[in-house]
């Protein structure tokens, strides 16, 4: 078996060397297809990331009843903080709110002395972990009793949620389509190298090579082409993403650029593995078709 494996590998490299042009076409095709695929994956990751970040900035605001003391308000704050799903609670006392209000509007609006007394309640700005938790948290806070009103933007949350799911569903379908298109291109490219070697296949079959034996060199050839193509797309994508991310981060600092090193490594590795898989399947399908024609 070892000598066979050696033979297959030698044959695969021999074919690669002889068909430099076709091999290059196959490598470039795989590299370009996988780069587009990877770029798209990164785009989706970034969109999800932005949507996720924006959603997580969504707060709800709870207004207490007018006559709540500061001590009681402190106790309520602790209760809110302990509610499930609550990430952060920020307390603004009625005095602070009034001061801020007067600062903001005092000079511009004539209050006409109508409001000497502070009409504002204490407020809690509450941040929850995911947008889905907002209604739940709002209900729980209302149930605490001394809260007059809870406000949050339900419509915006729904819109965000549907955007996230649209990006996910659309992304998955597009990735599936792209993978299929890439496979077709790769199969057809490798098929050209198989067609160029039809005489070889005919002779191999004639002198008594089994189908398995004929297939292996092509499968290994596909694997090598896929590995090179996948490697190229990995390098292209890694360096271009890093430079784009750096520039974007500098130009638009508020934009959350996706930079999860583990996830990025998974994406890059998937390009390499995807390349090898594409080459392997491409080689297998191509040579199997050629053998079927041979009879």
């Amino acid at each position, binding site marked *: 078996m070892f000598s066979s494996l050696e033979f297959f590998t030698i044959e695969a490299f021999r074919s690669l060397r*002889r068909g430099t042009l076709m091999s290059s076409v196959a490598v470039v095709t795989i590299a370009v297809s996988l780069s587009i695929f990877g770029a798209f994956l990164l785009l989706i990751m970034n969109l999800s990331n932005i949507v996720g970040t924006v959603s997580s900035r969504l707060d709800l605001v709870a207004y207490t009843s007018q006559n709540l003391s500061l001590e009681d308000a402190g106790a309520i704050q602790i209760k809110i903080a302990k509610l499930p799903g609550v990430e952060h609670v920020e307390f603004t006392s009625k005095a602070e709110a009034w001061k801020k209000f007067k600062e903001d509007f005092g000079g511009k609006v004539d209050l006409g002395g109508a409001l000497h007394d502070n009409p504002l309640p204490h407020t809690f700005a509450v941040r929850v972990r995911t947008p889905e938790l907002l209604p739940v948290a709002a209900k729980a806070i209302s149930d605490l009793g001394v809260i007059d009103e809870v406000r949050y933007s339900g419509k915006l949350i729904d819109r965000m949620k549907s955007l996230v799911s649209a990006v996910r569903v659309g992304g998955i379908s597009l990735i599936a389509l792209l993978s299929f298109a890439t496979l077709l291109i790769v199969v057809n490219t490798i098929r050209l190298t198989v067609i160029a070697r039809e005489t070889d296949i005919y002779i191999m079959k004639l002198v008594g*090579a089994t189908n398995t034996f004929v297939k292996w060199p092509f499968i290994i050839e596909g694997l090598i082409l896929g590995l090179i193509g996948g490697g190229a797309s990995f390098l292209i994508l890694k360096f271009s993403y890093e430079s784009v991310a750096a520039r974007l981060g500098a130009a638009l600092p508020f934009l959350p650029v996706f930079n999860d090193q583990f996830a990025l490594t998974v994406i890059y590795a998937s390009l390499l593995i995807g390349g090898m898989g594409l080459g392997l399947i491409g080689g297998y399908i191509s040579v199997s078709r050629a053998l079927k024609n041979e009879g």
Partner: protein
Amino acid sequence: MIELKGVTKVFPSGIDALHDINLTIGKEEFVFLVGSSGAGKTTLMKLLYREEKPTAGKVVVDRVNVAELAPDQVPYLRRNIGVVFQDFKLLPKRTIYENVAFALRVTGAPRSTIRRKAMQALELVGMLRRANSFPDELSGGEKQRACIARAIVNNPPILLADEPTGNLDPTTSWDILQLLDKINKRNTTVVVATHNKSIVDEMKRRVVELEEGRLVRDQQLGMYSV
């Protein structure tokens, strides 16, 4: 060794290539298959190494009905049949040695055996000194010798030659036939399909004649035509 019983071959296009052929070729025989172009010589050969299947009848090679052989068994049949072509079918990017060794490689033979057997085959056909040449660098006769070396490198009990002298001049053709005769004397059954009248007449071997897919003559010590 080879037995055809009521063999008929009709191609999907409707062409009636062979019709009710009955033929027995014994072990180590030397047979000429003659007839004009389109008489069915090549089709008959292809039936023997299962490049084609008969429409009806039995094709028995070495006690096995080739017509009913499972596809995964065909490679093992072919290892027992050497085939020589008019157009040689050598792989152009490989040296003569590699071409011959290739036939052994694909059977998974160990490297030491490959080298020894390939050298022996090249020596038998007188091509040892051209082992490292490429097919393009050789004359027609040399190419045919290389093709024969490839066909016999596995020591097959049967050697089929389809118009082996079709592209060769008379002297070279005669040399090739001498070589096939030599291989026959090394206990190999040899079947030669040919148009070459002078060679058939000179060799005086068994002659089987086909005409429009029918076997019209089977004669020991025969001539090209009656």
